[in-house]
């Protein structure tokens, strides 16, 4: 897991094993990757920065912008859209926590409890990734039907008087968070499974032998040893969740008042054609994610990633 490796700076043995030989073959092999990144990441990124600083067309034509250095774009979008940015991160954090709470037990069950039954283990893993066989959009749309005003879930909850008659499920923050969590559970489960599958169960026996109850053994031994998987899983969930615009869209599980930053960017790029606003929002989103992820890895992922 690539993310799991972040912060394992104290692994000198591996680095020493390959002395710094700069062979031309190695550089040659790197070339396609570097070219790909330059073409499809660096060039669009520079273009995005340039776009984010553009000024409106002096003749007032909609959708046309001229080159400029209008840094006020950033100030304007921050003052206008800060609630969307805050909501995006709030939803993403909530969805990540829910996905972790659901994904970890699944991963533990498959990686530890099913270890003695390889066939069942393989079957369970297929079931975890089975949702990918159907398009993300279709699945989210299906949830919209299930949670709809005339749908079965709301009907049951209302007839049990858990929810009042005028309550709705779709179009609420809860539905959006639920949808994001649902869609990213496999991304959370698989890396954690990879960590737990390698967990030496003798450490758990040693925990019990040293007076740790099963719960204490979990928090002191199992969880720390599976942290690489947890860090990978939360990053794989949180980063795309923060930029998600499908679940929060009014066409799916959201409503105008649940719009996330992704919805704003989408509207500005494709409907309003306000490219500088969309571009500066994209860069703010990217920067904010980088900042949060950096802090998170510093906090969770340095020493404990063995």
């Amino acid at each position, binding site marked *: 897991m690539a993310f799991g490796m972040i912060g394992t700076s104290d692994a000198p043995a591996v680095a020493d094993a390959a002395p710094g030989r700069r062979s031309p073959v190695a550089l040659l092999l790197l070339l396609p990757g570097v070219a790909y990144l330059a073409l499809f990441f660096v060039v669009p990124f520079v273009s995005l920065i340039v776009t984010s600083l553009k000024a409106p067309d002096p003749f007032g034509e909609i959708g046309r912008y001229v080159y400029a250095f209008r840094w006020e774009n950033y100030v304007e979008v921050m003052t206008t859209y800060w609630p969307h940015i805050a909501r995006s991160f709030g939803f993403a954090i909530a969805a990540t926590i829910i996905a972790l709470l659901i994904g970890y037990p699944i991963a533990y069950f498959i990686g530890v409890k099913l270890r003695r039954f390889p066939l069942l283990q393989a079957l369970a893993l297929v079931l975890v990734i089975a949702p990918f066989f159907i398009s993300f959009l279709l699945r989210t749309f299906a949830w919209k039907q299930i949670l709809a005003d005339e749908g079965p879930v709301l009907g049951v909850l209302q007839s049990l008087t858990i929810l009042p008659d005028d309550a709705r499920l779709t179009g609420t923050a809860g539905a959006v968070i639920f949808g994001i969590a649902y869609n990213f559970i496999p991304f959370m489960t698989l890396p954690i499974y990879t960590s737990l599958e390698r967990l*030496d169960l*003798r450490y758990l026996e*040693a*925990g*019990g*032998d040293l*007076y*740790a109850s099963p719960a204490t*053994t979990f928090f002191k031994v199992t969880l720390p040893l599976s942290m690489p998987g947890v860090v990978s899983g939360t990053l794989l969930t949180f980063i795309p969740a923060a930029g998600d615009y499908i679940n929060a869209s009014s066409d799916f599980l959201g409503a105008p008042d649940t719009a996330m930053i992704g919805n704003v960017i989408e509207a500005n790029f494709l409907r309003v054609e306000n490219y500088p606003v969309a571009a500066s929002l994209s860069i703010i989103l990217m920067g904010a994610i980088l900042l949060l992820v950096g802090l998170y890895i510093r906090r969770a992922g340095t020493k404990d990633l*063995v």
Partner: protein
Amino acid sequence: MESASSGADLQLDDVSKRFPGFTAIEELNLTVPAGSFFALLGPSGCGKTTTLRIVAGLETPTTGRVLIGKDDVTRTPSYRRPVNTVFQSYALFPHMTVLENVAFGLKRRGTKNAIARAHEALQMVELDHVAQRRPAQLSGGQQQRVALARAVVNRPALLLLDEPLGALDLKLRRQMQVELKDIQTDVGITFLHVTHDQEEAMTMADTIAVMNKGRIEQMGAPAELYELPRTAFVANFLGQSNLFAGPVLSAKGDTIVVDVAGRKIAVPRERAQRHAGDVTIGVRPEKLVLHTTEPAPAAGVNLLGPGRVHDVSFSGVSTQYLIAVPGVGTLTLFAQNLVSGPVVSDGAEVWLTWSVDHGFGVADEPAEALRFDPDDDTQAIAIAQRRRIEAELEEA
């Protein structure tokens, strides 16, 4: 949970453990007195590790009871038992420092000064200077000592050792054997040591129980087991033995006389398990005396021979002779190096004598006793392995 400062008795009553398809332990009865160093010795698959895991609470016995002190702990989960284990793999937590590993048990029980006491335990095994390192940064011997400190620091009523020295090289193993014994004497904890290394068991334990196929074959002090094995398995697993079968000719007075290939061999009555019919008797290789001329018969001495020497291996301190005696089979003889080098060479005709007091009679049926497969002996396995490697090297 009380912290036992000195050891407690361990008692196993009729403990059995059945797994699907096989029985690991059959009706085991065992009492380990408080403060003793008790070794469970046996070949792999004899049930000794299962016994240890049942005492630790990592397995539940199918039948029977486990008592530590006066408490029945049969259904007590491992984390509530006053028992600590030094695991064969050490099982040191890789994400914690050495100090955190050693303090783990103390912290779980809310002991005050957990860190200070962990440092003391590390000083005892002379590893306090690596307290802040991770287990992976230590050598095998150091990890073993950390595992020991992590268990001993809790002052358990009972300390379980699951072949903890198996992974160490010979020199380190000898050193650790001495250290372990010292620690046991110092802290007075009851030690239950599981091993397949007979030498380790003999040098360290007060009492050894030899296990075979889920049952205890014989239990006693190391010297007692060695001098007077009661079964063919013990006679061969704990050191080597020469075993002979034959019918009892007379059982008058305090000796029984057995016919071995025409020779009358006497065994003290109280050293023989069976006194009539076909019996198996034996003698240890170092008790045999080698003669190049036929000695005159003497009272209190057994005589076998003539036989022919077909292998002489000189190991410095002693020489091992393999001697084929017609009608008896091949006997092994260890002679101390009193003169310079071996006294006879291959093909020499020799006679063997030993004091009647050194013979013993085992309980097995003669047919079964002689069918003992010496491959079960760890030493034999090691020799076979070395031969295989040598053969491979020659081919290459």
